[in-house]
């Protein structure tokens, strides 16, 4: 009861005033100039949105408090009551306006198309069939989804431009704020001068916070009237000709009560398309899920097919070779086991892009294989050690060489011991493969999160996703158990009663 009540009330003006702070949600990963960590003073944040938040809070007579959140989950987090407002480059769309309360705009952005310097691509129309990078949950993504292009989704703002420069994509479509800072500055890239579309950044507030919405809009209008907003934007080099129409809106103070978008169309604006979202999990979604599951399964199978021999080779190096081999294998295991898989994927895909340019799928398979190879190495090392030394001696006494003894006597027995742990690792890999979405591979979990946000429902996509993982892992576990039983020598020991009975 108490919990429900507290959630329901979270975020309206009375709570904000009572608490004395305006909690605003954003993602530091969004980086400069929105909100980011001050490199001079670690732990402190700065950015034009920090200044806007402070100015707004001051108008409300409270302090501003930043709440870190994953950008693509800002809306659900707001609805959960994690904070009072979203203030982080949130674009105004009719769809969002239906879901939450949106303030009047505080900034007008232009969707900027960036291509490689020598490219002949000159407009969105030229991009048919091309690979175009953008961020998930953005208007740019909506525009691209409505166009005949292959969309490549990224998590951070720098990566799309890095990949474009490397030739992994043909263009990037993102807000000019991002393009100006991360894309246009690269010598390999060129930003096209005309905006593909224009839109507004607005604050988001919970459905149950009408008073807060009103107060925020008044505060924004006051900041615009006094010129403080312009000063903040100028300080961050964000003030440009696009901002003029937004200023006009400011005089209108309150938005239409119906929640319809109060978009002041810039003169040449092509309004951002907002495809009518499907509200229910349908056949098309199911197919997308199956496709995601297939990606997960293939990536897992291929990477495990590489990780297993790698692990076996490492284990053998660690147990049967000279000091340099042992040392190398041990170092490999410690490095790959001791650092996060996510980091390894980033390094492999983005960090090493100048040395080897891997496509996302190859990088995903390789990254998982290299990481799991280290785990498999330990599994096989343990299994090899568990075979009694007498077995090696018996094989050697029969005249087998070290390698023959390993191959024909020790390893087959070790394999049986290793199998349960190996199966376990494969199931873990199946789930860890969801991390490859950071290098733009859309696998099952990524498909689920994309869909969940689109459908505003986590239950159906979540359960479907879980069911698919289960369907993939359970038969494998069963199959491994069967193999294990087949490899197992029969356990029933002969009783002493029949000793010599056959003689």
């Amino acid at each position, binding site marked *: 009861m108490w919990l429900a009540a507290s959630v329901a009330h979270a975020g309206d003006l009375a709570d904000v005033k009572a608490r004395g702070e305006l909690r605003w949600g954003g993602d530091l990963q969004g980086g400069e100039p929105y909100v980011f960590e001050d490199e001079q003073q670690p732990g402190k944040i700065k950015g034009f949105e920090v200044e806007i938040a402070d100015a707004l809070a001051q108008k409300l007579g409270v302090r501003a408090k930043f709440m870190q959140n994953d950008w693509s989950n800002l809306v659900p987090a707001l609805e959960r009551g994690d904070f009072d407002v979203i203030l982080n480059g949130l674009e105004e769309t009719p769809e969002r306006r239906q879901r939450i309360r949106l303030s009047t705009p505080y900034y007008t952005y232009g969707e900027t198309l960036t291509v490689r310097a020598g490219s002949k691509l000159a407009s969105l129309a030229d991009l048919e069939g091309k690979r175009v990078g953008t961020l998930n949950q953005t208007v740019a993504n909506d525009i691209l989804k409505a166009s005949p292009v292959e969309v490549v989704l990224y998590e951070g703002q720098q990566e799309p431009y890095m990949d474009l420069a490397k030739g992994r994509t043909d263009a990037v479509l993102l807000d000019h704020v991002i393009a100006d800072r991360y894309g246009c500055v690269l010598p390999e890239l060129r930003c096209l001068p005309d905006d593909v579309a224009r839109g507004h950044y607005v604050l988001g507030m919970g459905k149950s916070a009408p008073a807060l919405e009103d107060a925020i809009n008044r505060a924004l209008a006051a900041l615009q009237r006094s010129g403080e907003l312009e000063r903040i934007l100028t300080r961050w080099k964000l003030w440009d000709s696009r901002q003029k129409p937004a200023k006009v809106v400011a005089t209108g103070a309150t938005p239409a009560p119906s929640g319809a978008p109060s978009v002041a169309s810039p003169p040449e604006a092509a309004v951002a398309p907002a495809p009518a979202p499907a509200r229910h999990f349908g056949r098309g979604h199911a197919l997308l899920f199956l496709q995601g599951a297939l990606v997960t399964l293939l990536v897992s199978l291929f990477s495990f097919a590489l990780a297993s021999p790698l692990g076996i080779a490492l284990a053998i190096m660690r147990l049967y070779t000279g000091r340099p081999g042992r040392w190398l294998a041990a170092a490999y295991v410690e490095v790959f086991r001791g650092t996060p898989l996510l980091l390894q994927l980033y390094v492999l895909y983005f960090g090493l892009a100048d040395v080897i340019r891997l496509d996302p799928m190859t990088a995903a398979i390789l990254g998982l294989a290299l990481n799991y190879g280290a785990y498999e190495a330990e599994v096989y090392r343990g299994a090899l050690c568990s075979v*009694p030394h*007498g*077995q090696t*001696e*018996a*094989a*050697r*006494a*029969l*005249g*087998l*060489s*070290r390698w*023959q003894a390993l191959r*024909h*006597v020790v390893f*087959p*027995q070790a394999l*049986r011991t290793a199998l349960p742990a190996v199966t376990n690792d494969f199931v873990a890999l199946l789930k860890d493969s969801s991390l490859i979405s950071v290098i733009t591979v859309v696998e099952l979990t990524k498909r689920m999160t994309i869909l969940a946000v689109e459908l505003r429902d986590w239950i159906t996509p979540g359960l479907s996703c879980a069911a698919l993982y289960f369907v993939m892992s359970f038969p494998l576990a069963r199959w491994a158990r069967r193999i294990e039983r087949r*490899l197992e*020598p*029969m*356990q*029933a*020991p*002969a*009783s*002493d009663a*029949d*000793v*010599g*009975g*056959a*003689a």
Partner: protein
Amino acid sequence: MSTPVIRLLGIGKRFGARQVLRGIQADVKPGAIVSLVGASGSGKTTLLRCLNGLETIDSGRIQIAGHTVEPNPSDAALTQLRADVGMVFQDYQLFPHLTVLDNLCLAPQIVRKVARPDAEKRARALLEQVGLGDRHGSRPSELSGGQKQRVALARALAQDVKVLLLDEPTSALDARTRDEIVGILRDLVKGSGEPLTVLLVTHDLHLAETLSDEVWTLVDGQLSHVKA
């Protein structure tokens, strides 16, 4: 009669500070059965293991079945030697993942490169000889102790060895089974085309007396008593 099949020329072996074997000197004639007896820790098993290179010697020289073992032998030399010198371990050490037949065929196929049908034929004959003709498809875990011992014997003989080393072949067996093994051993020595020489370590003085041509007693790492 002929030249000795085994010559031990001043064998010395130490484990750390402990001198286990002190200048062992002895010859074994082809076709002889020699029992090696002595108190626990007297170095019997160590001497046996030195004979096929499972333990390296620190001093002296071993001539066995036409091979020579010196301190610091090469791996390749030992591998060649072992193809001619079979060994049966106290705890048998059958390969649990293989059938009885495959336990016998493994070494001939890999070491001597015998074709599978030939290896199998020889293995089946040996299994008949040790009275296990019907157990070729069994796993070691399905066998009794005496049956395991017989499989281990057959496995050691599967590649026509000249010398057979046995470590406590009857220690884990009851009296009846022990007698069966002794009978099989006798038949094997007699029945083989080339004379088979057997060196066995045992605690069982009765076995030593009844089975062997010679009994060696190891005391403090030296052969104190050689009874022909």
